[in-house]
């Protein structure tokens, strides 16, 4: 854990990283669905116009065409808002990418509740759940700039289809400069034994801040960045669950079918019981607000996570 300094939006890091990779790899092709601006891909289009293809507002076609380009030998990044990419074109993801085993990189931008007050049409709180139930696609949810950069770099030659999603808010840097990243391998950001928070994506920043707050109150708190939601790092999960008093999961996703339930299933099957809480967006009409207001409303906040930890510890 380093001193957390302000970085950029993961969106920007994605676009910069991809441009650098594509300059040296002409087989990298980017597909957009009128999402060049929102994906921060305008510079990419200006610099490498032959490696970006506009598909218009047609996400089903975007994903199908991505499969075809992959068959033609390209490393394809299909970029579209996560809400549309994983709902409108779900059947194309299931059949044309996952089932047909074309290692396309599906990039869900402005994911979770990043679009805030634009409302539920623009939220993706279902994507982990639906994609987890589809065979042969990995799900990666970077928390900060480092994880975003590394996830994109790792994805180019990833042998399987992969879905990477992130938001558009500037994130704190959570990793030391010598950190390493591997798809499927969780990262311990902070260590502690009283409380463990397993986080994925942008709530990870708040988990780290909550851990600091808890530490100041004399409670040690471990924070795990579970950047890969599928395949889950079961080894790390089992290890931390057996070396903590209470366990919290936190994600920018419905509490149904996401990281929390994935962890719960594994712990239950292994007979590991401990005070446990899944923090995410509950099954209700999501409150109106910015991403951070929505986080605060549902306890994906420093105060909310601290209180959850204290409540769980009271049961020990």
């Amino acid at each position: 854990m380093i001193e957390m300094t302000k970085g950029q939006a993961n969106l920007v890091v994605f676009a910069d990283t991809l441009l650098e990779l594509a300059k040296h790899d002409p087989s990298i092709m980017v597909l957009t669905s009128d999402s060049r601006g929102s994906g921060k891909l305008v510079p990419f289009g200006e610099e490498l116009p032959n490696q970006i293809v506009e598909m218009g507002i047609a996400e089903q076609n975007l994903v199908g065409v991505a499969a075809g380009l992959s068959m033609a030998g390209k490393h394809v990044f299909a970029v579209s808002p996560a809400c549309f990419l994983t709902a409108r074109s779900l059947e194309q993801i299931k059949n044309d990418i996952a089932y047909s085993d074309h290692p396309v990189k599906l990039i869900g931008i402005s994911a979770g509740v990043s679009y805030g007050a634009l409302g539920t049409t623009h939220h993706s709180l279902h994507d982990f759940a639906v994609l987890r139930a589809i065979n042969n696609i990995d799900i990666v949810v970077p928390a900060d700039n480092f994880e975003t950069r590394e996830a994109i770099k790792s994805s180019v030659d990833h042998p399987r289809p992969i879905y990477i999603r992130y938001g558009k808010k500037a994130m704190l840097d959570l990793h030391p400069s010598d950190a390493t990243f591997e798809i499927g391998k969780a990262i311990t950001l902070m260590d502690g034994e009283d409380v463990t928070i397993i986080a994925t994506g942008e709530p990870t920043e708040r988990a780290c801040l909550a851990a600091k707050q808890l530490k100041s109150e004399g409670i040690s708190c471990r924070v795990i960045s579970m950047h890969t939601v599928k395949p889950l790092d079961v080894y790390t999960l089992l290890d931390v669950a057996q070396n903590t008093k209470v366990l919290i999961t936190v994600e920018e996703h419905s509490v149904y079918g996401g990281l929390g339930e994935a962890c719960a299933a594994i712990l239950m099957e292994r007979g590991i019981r401990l005070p446990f809480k899944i923090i995410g967006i509950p099954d209700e009409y999501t409150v109106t607000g910015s991403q951070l207001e929505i986080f605060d409303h549902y306890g994906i906040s420093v105060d909310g996570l601290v209180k959850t930890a204290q409540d769980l510890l009271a049961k020990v």
Partner: protein
Amino acid sequence: MDNQQLKRKSIQYRKTILRIIKQANAGHTGGSLSCIDILNVLYNYVMDITPENFASTNRDHYIQSKGHSVEALYTVLADKGFYPESDLDTLDQYQSHFVGHPTRKIKGIEHNTGALGHGLSVSVGIALGMKHDGHNSRVFTLLGDGELAEGSSWEALMSASHYKLDNLVIIVDRNSLQITGGTEEVMGLEPLADRFASFGCAVRVCNGNDVEDLISTFDSLPLELGRPNLIIAQTTKGKGISFMENTVKWHHRVPTEDEFKLAMQELEELEVSL
């Protein structure tokens, strides 16, 4: 291969299709019989796809969007030497790779289809890739007419003409029947040629069960430079077997022993008359 040989192949393929459907006790009989002459001409006259060049991307490509007519595709691929025809005895059997819709587990098949309205987008992607790399190879895709009710087909068409994909050849198996009834009763498609033309395609109508007409149509590719090629192949569902032709129930009916014998007899007679 000359026309006479191709016509013999069509009869031989029809026999195999009926045999494997009967053995599996499942299959899409009518649609496989309507499109088999198209596949015959494509694989034996038009396309450059062989077991030897299949691993390369710089060759012709074929995507069967109407995946349910898989028995036709399996039959032709066996004849092309992608696998022994005896493998087809496992069609639909427990643990067989020969599933009731195309999958890449079978050599010669490059994309999994079965859900309708997908194949054209995938074909657009391959065609874009071929153009991008400066390859002259072409992408052929076979669509059912019923599946044109899927909006994704029209998204794909928009992009095919936007990117001027004249290396893309879209063939519609226009047998005018779908599982519920006539296409014009279920969800009207006409004026189909005008609709395709208005989406920027170069359109040609041909008899999709006539080997000569198919050959002359494919010989005239590309129909127009800078436009995707759209061939409306007018066919008869159940073609070649009198009691199956133009009959809705033969969409996925399996012939009984008597029906199978009768069908084989009709095909034998057709062969003798060639």
